[in-house]
Structures are given as C-alpha cells and as structure tokens.
C-alpha cells in the first residue's frame, strides 16, 4: 500500500536523479550500459555472515510483510540477526547521520528525498557485488542507483465514492476538477508534501498538460488550476489513511489517494472507485546511511531484498508493487492485477520525476522546498 500513508511522518523521499540518469542511459546504450554499471558475477551469492543489521521496519502491515518476506528468511539463510527499528521522519534520519550515529544500518527514504541525501554525502554507495545479475536486470520501471535500490512502488491515483458514481466515475484529473459532471466535495494532499503529494502534477494535468510535458513544472499554471478547485476542497489531506477515510465517511465525493490504501479499504468492504489513468508512480528506496556500523550486513540485506522471489512474497502480503518486475513470475494473476506496475496499469501511468523535485533552482533552493514555500504563500493568500 502506501507507505505513502504516513508520509507526514514518514521518512522517505527520494532519489531521483539516478532513475532518470539510468533510464536515459538504458535507452541510449541498451542493456549493456546497465550491465557495465553493475558488474556482477554469474553465480548465486553467498550472503552468510554474523552479527546484526538494524533495519527500518515501518510497523503495522508494512512491517509485518517485511518480517515475513525479508527479515525471517534473511536470518535463516545468512545467520545475521535483523534488529527492527521503528520509524522516524526524514529530518530525524538526517539529524542522526549528521550526529554520526545513524539509528539504522539500512533505512528507507522516499524517492523524492534520496538524491538530496546523496548530494549531501550522507549515503554509502550500494555494493552490487552482492547482487545476482539477473536480479538487477529485473528492475522496472525504476532502475537501482549508485546510492539506492528501490524498495516499493506505489501509485497516487484519482479516487471517488464508488457508490455515488456507480454508473462510472471520474477517469482523469480534469474530471476530478469538474464538479458539474461529478458533484461533491474534494480532497487532495496538502502541498506541504512537495512532490510526495503529487498535488502540483495533478493540478497541471487537470489543466490539460500531458504527463510527458509536465516537467519542469509550471508553478503559476499549477496554482491557477488549484485556484479553480480550491472552493470545492473540503480539506487538504495530510496522512495517507485520510483520503480513503473521507470517502468511506462520505465527507468527500472524489479526490486522490494511494492505490494500496484504496485496495486495503475495499478488501474490508469499502466501495472506493479509482482509475489508473494519469496515476503517478512513486517509490521508496533502500539506502545505507553513512556512519552506520554494520555496513556489510546491510549490503547483504539489500541484495537479499532485491531477489524476485522474496519481493513476490512481500507483494502477497501488502499491495506495494515489487520494483523487481521478475517478481510477477511468482505472483498469482489475481494478486498481480491489483498492483500498480502490472502491464495494463503501467501504461496508463507515469513515473514521477524525482530528479526535478530534487533539483535546485537558480536561487539555490531545491524544488521540494520551493513548493512548500509557494504553497504557504498561496494558502496565506499572499501569492
């Protein structure tokens, strides 16, 4: 689902550049480029070791899925004990690295934050020597980077009250903006999430911008589009569970939500409609904080968690898409069709451009920070 959920408190955000970089290179140089980037021996890797590794857990059903798919099998195969450490926020992770005492050996950052951490020299490079070549080739649509390996992929999609619009609900962001065609209050993520909420992209798509032409974002146009929807916004949601909850409680008729949250609520009997069309694919990465103690074990853990069979086991427990597409070979079709990177869904969506979100503007302010500052101006009526 979405780790997205807790985003307000979560930590994760980004690593962008790498993905774009890799995509570009893959397109330009074909498979051989990615091979040469990640030279890896052909034989199955022996990950055996001793000691411990402190891993970000995430709690709840997310932590539970990790325990079953990764932690326990990893301990069994390698003899390395996994120490589960509860979540914290991006800021606290950064503080702990600055203080020279990171609390995790392996942690998770959202795609929208990873590059900033890498730029500040806070992460260790991934040692792809522990990976199977085949495991590396399977990553799609997001490739592993120098400092990060994707952990989960999820989608920010348009969502609506399925009971209210039983005959067919909104099918694009323009529909979400169209309160005549689909009447009722709306809710979108607060702009203080910067890229993570996807609100700026949604606003531009609602105004007619094609996903391929979104970046660099046209801020003025985005805020003008937001001006139009604002009178119909009941509230800006601030935690991933909130969007579906507002629909279940019939407070709103439509808005956006993370796909995993929607499916989980529907499994419990809710009737939330959604569409993959114009969905924004987002992802979280495994990273190695600089200064951590058990770095070798941490490298081994990430390699282990990148194997397709393990990722399939994970996706059986929770509706985050496995970044290693080969995991689909191990998944039942009825499960696979719920995941945002399955082929049918994949072609309707696009991957959020985290490189843009991490890039700095001419005034040296990163876009993530700029978005929050502009959002505050807009909310205060001073933009």
């Amino acid at each position, binding site marked *: 689902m979405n780790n997205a959920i807790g985003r307000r408190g979560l930590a994760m955000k980004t690593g962008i550049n790498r993905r774009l970089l890799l995509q570009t290179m893959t397109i330009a140089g074909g498979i051989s480029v990615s091979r040469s980037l990640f030279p890896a021996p052909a034989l199955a890797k022996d990950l055996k070791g001793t000691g411990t590794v402190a891993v970000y857990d995430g709690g709840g059903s997310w932590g539970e899925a990790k325990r079953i798919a990764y932690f326990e099998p990893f301990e069994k195969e390698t003899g390395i004990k996994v120490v589960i450490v509860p979540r914290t926020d991006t800021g606290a992770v950064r503080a702990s690295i600055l203080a020279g005492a990171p*609390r995790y050996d392996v942690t998770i950052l959202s795609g929208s934050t990873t590059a900033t951490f890498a730029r500040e020299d806070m992460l260790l490079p991934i040692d792809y020597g522990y990976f199977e070549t085949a495991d590396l080739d399977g990553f799609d649509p997001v490739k592993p980077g120098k400092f990060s390996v994707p952990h989960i992929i999820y989608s920010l999609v348009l969502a609506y009250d399925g009971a209210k619009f039983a005959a067919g609900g909104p099918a694009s962001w323009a529909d979400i903006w169209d309160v005549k065609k689909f009447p009722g209050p709306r809710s979108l993520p607060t702009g203080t999430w910067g890229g993570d909420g996807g609100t700026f992209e949604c606003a531009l798509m609602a105004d007619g911008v094609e996903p391929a032409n979104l970046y660099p974002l046209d801020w003025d146009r985005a805020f003008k589009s937001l001006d139009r929807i604002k009178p119909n916004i009941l509230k800006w949601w601030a935690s991933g569970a909130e969007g579906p909850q507002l629909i279940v409680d019939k407070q709103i008729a439509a808005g956006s939500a993370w796909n995993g949250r929607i499916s989980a609520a529907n499994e419990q009997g809710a009737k939330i409609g959604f569409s993959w069309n114009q969905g924004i694919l987002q992802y979280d990465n495994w990273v190695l904080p600089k200064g951590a103690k058990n770095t070798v074990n941490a490298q081994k853990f990430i390699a282990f968690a990148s194997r397709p069979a393990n990722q399939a086991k994970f996706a059986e427990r929770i509706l985050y898409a496995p970044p290693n597409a080969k995991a689909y070979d191990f998944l039942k079709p009825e499960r696979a069709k719920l995941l945002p990177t399955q082929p049918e869904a994949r072609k309707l969506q696009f991957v959020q451009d985290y490189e843009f979100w991490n890039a700095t503007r001419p005034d040296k302010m990163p876009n993530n920070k700029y978005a929050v500052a502009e959002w505050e101006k807009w909310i205060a009526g001073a933009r």
Partner: protein
Amino acid sequence: MLAPILALFLAAYVLPLGGLVADSFQREGDFTFANHTALLESRAFRIILWRTLTLSFVVTLICLLIAYPLAYVLARLPSRWAAGLLLLVSVPYVTSILIRSYAWVVLLANNGVVNKLLLASGLVDEPLKLAFNETGTYIGMVHVQLPLMVFPLYAAMHRIDRSLLAAARNLGSTSASAFWHIFLPLSLPGVASGCTLVFLSCLGFYVTPALLGGPGQYMLAQGITVRVLTLADFAGAAAQATVLLLVVVLLFVALRRRFAAGLGIESTGRSGRTTAARGLRAWPAPLEAAIEALSGPLRTLGSMLSIVGGPVVVALAVLALLYLIVPLLMVIPLAFSDSPYLTFPPPGYSLRWFKTFLANARWLDAAGFSLAAAGIGAVVSLIIGIPAAFAVVRRPMMGRLPLYLLLISPLIVPHVIVALAMYFSMARVQLIGTPLAFVIAYALIGAPYVFVLFVAGLLRFDRSLEMAAANLGATPVTVLRTVTLPLLLPTLAAALLFAFIIGFDDVVFGLFLAGTNATPLPIRMWDDIRLEISPQIAVVAVLLFAALALAYAAYLALGLLGDRRSRMPGGGPIA
C-alpha cells in the same frame, strides 16, 4: 531552589537550542540577520504568524469564558466530588488526538450526529457547517485546551475564602458587586496562569486545526514541523522558531508591564505578601470607572443574578462538562467496534480491538515504558518546578521577569525544534535511545506547566496562615506539610496530571530520541496503525480513562484526604 531547574534547562535546552539558533544566523558561513529579516519581509510569513497569534488569542478567550463558570461551580463542591468532575475535565487530554479529531468529525460533519439531531428536530433546514472550517477549528482547539484553563482556575478559586463574599454582602454589597470586587480579583492568578498556558500551547499546536480546520487553515508550527521533519531544513525552521519566540516574548513583556498588577510578576520584584495584599485592591482605573457608571444596572443585574444566577451558572458549567466529555462518548463505542476500520456507529460490538492490544507484546512493552518515563519525568518536573515557583514568587530578587520567561519558553518554542536541538547534544553523550533521555525530555517539557501552575498557586496565597502555624511552634517542614501543601493540593494534582500527560502523549521527542530499548507507546502504535486508521487507538483512550476512573474510585473508597479536605458549604478553605 533554582539550581536544579536551571541546571536542567541549561544542559538540555538553552545550550542545545542556542546552537541551533546560532545556525539560523548563518548564511554561507557568515553571521547575518538575513534569514530572519527575510522572514519578516515575507508577507506570507507575517500573515501566517498573525493568524497563529490571533487564533491562539481567540481560543484563549473562549476557553476563559467557558472555563470560568465551570471552575466556579466545581470550587463550591466538596473536594471529593470536585475531584471526580475534574477527572472528567481531563478527558480531552487522555484521548489521543487522532481519535479525538475523528470523534469530532463524526459529531460535526454535515452528515454527523449533531446535524442529524438538528435536522430531525426541525431547528434547521439544512446541515450547519460545523467541521472543516473555522468553526471546526475553534471547537476542536478550545476543547483540547480547556483543561489547561479549568485546572488553574479551580486551584485559585478553591482557596478563595467565601466568607469574604458573605461579609461583603452583609455590609450591603450586591452579589454582583461582591463578585466583581472580591471574587474576581482573587481568582486573577488562576486566570493569568490559565491564559498563559492556553495561549502558549495554542501557538505550538497544529494537528487539530489541520484535521478539523478548513482548506485555508495553516499554523506557523505546521510550517516549522514540515521544515524539520519533511524538508530537513533545520536552519530555516530555527529561524522561524526564533522569530516566533522573540515576538511572543516581546508581547509578553509588553502585556506584563501593562497588567503586571493583575499577573503579580514584575521585574521590580515584590514579595508574595504584598502581592497578596494587592489582590484585594481595586480594578485598574478605567475599568473601575466603568463599573462605577454601570453600578446601577449592575446592582439590578446582581440582584437578578442572586435569584437566577446560581442555576444559570450551574447550567453553563454542566454544558461545559458535556462539551468536554462528548467526544469520549463517541470514542467508547468505537473501542468496542467489531469493524476493521473506523465507522460510526459501529456495525457491531466486540472486544477484538482490546484483545489485539493486550496480545501485542510490543505495545505492552511500549506502554510500560511510556508510563514509567512520563511518570518519572512528571515527578522530576515537580521536584524542580515547585521550588522554582517558590523562589520566583517569594524571594525578592533581580531578574524575575527574564527568569519567568526562560522557564515558560519551552511552551513557546515548538517541540519539534527543542527535540531536534536536544537530539544533537544527547547524541554527543550517547544518550539517544536510553530511558534517561526521555526522562530528561519529559521533565523539561513538563516543568513549565508545573512552574506556571505553582506561581499562580502561590500568588495571593494567604501567608498569615503559615505564620500563624509558625507562631504556634510548627517547624517549617510541619508548616509546609500541614498548611502550605494541603492548600496547594489541587495545584499539585493539576501539575502532576499535565506534566504526565504531556510526556505520555508526546510523539515528537519520541521520533528523535527513541531506540531499540526505549520506544514510547505513541511512536510504536503510530508506527503500526499509521497505514490503517483502525479502532485500535480508541482502545488506548478507553484503557487510560478506565485507569484514571479506577484511581478515583480507590481515592473515594479509601477516603484518602477526602474527609480532611472536604469543605463545609460556605466554609473557609481549610474549615
């Protein structure tokens, strides 16, 4: 008397925060005010700051208006009943913010309980907009801040010798006039400390407005929190917090100068004795003139009040109590829901969420840790906060105002900033992830509550009682034990409750200080249920409240202090 609190503040707060604030004065390695002036020049920042201040002010005012009659009525009840009702007053504090906000949505939304009742009764034709707008913000904010106003008011009124009122009436004063000239001035220290606590804690409070407010709602603390936690922009956050702190301190200094008499703390330093005497003095001249001019109508009003006044005040108090407990009335059924997610009313009832909670060893461990850390932290803040209040109120000395401001400032600086600053210094001495780190943090954030409450408790404290005891041969310790502390018992109870809850409920310090062996309950549970708003959080609120109710039952059963403390109707405070 001041040494312990100053040592803690210096090591765990002033020095760490100083480092962070110093960072905000840096730009590319140079010392500069540019970061701060840029903020003040930003229209958006000024608007958000202004909105934060005015919202906090209005909430404070509403709290005062609601809390005053409630505390007035409670103070007239025998202590044992008042204690029970005060327990109800603390309800907003023991229910987690998430579930409480959800309960408000259930009540106030367009299709909520309140609107259904109004529509059914024919009082309105279409649903009132009570949530997701300013109204929702005020309802939610006032609700959670109200206990901070009621407790200090109660503590102050509880000690007012009602025979003074009777004397005034015997001398021909109307009830209204006796109230204005005697009761109200004597209750002022409670008003001052309640307003201080509410106003300051509103400044740092943004979750309720974010959950219940409209789409335009945005508090300064929200921006600061986003900068620290999401953007990891520590210098930017520190700059905003610095400006906030400065503005509030200036505001305080200005207000204190103007209302120094009413508040009793002045930089010139006065002993508690003179301040106590000044409590009986007249109102400031303009107000006195106004009262004079209105004396005719007031007299009439007073005599009317003396006939219907009692019932009206009692009705107001009952309404205030209802307002405080109504969300709990929603939360209890939610805890017994058999639904996998939050829906109201629950489709069926079961104990499933209690079972999951009690079967989860990690949660129970975390609950145990939180109880212990918050408990010890609260006791430490009492131990350091009470002597500080005695020193500030009773010892004439230089620099009382700066000292006062320093000791209350942890209420002004958003916790996320204090936690961040504390993190760096504690990491240096390897304290992160230890229980000691939490005790220090909780003691620090609890101490201002203790301090403010006890300052109010000690102002207008009738020291002739202590002197009488001393003249009769009591040792200072005996005086403290038999006279001073019993009179301050409600203050002590309130201080302990606030200091405890503030630690027990904390999430922010947990984010920074937690480790494998020290994870508080809110962090652990929030981590687990963040993906699914389940009825689980309601269970903790119900268990916590049940624990408080049990403690109260035990208190009644044992008659602990009860008999000694209960007051005769119309009797003096230590009758």
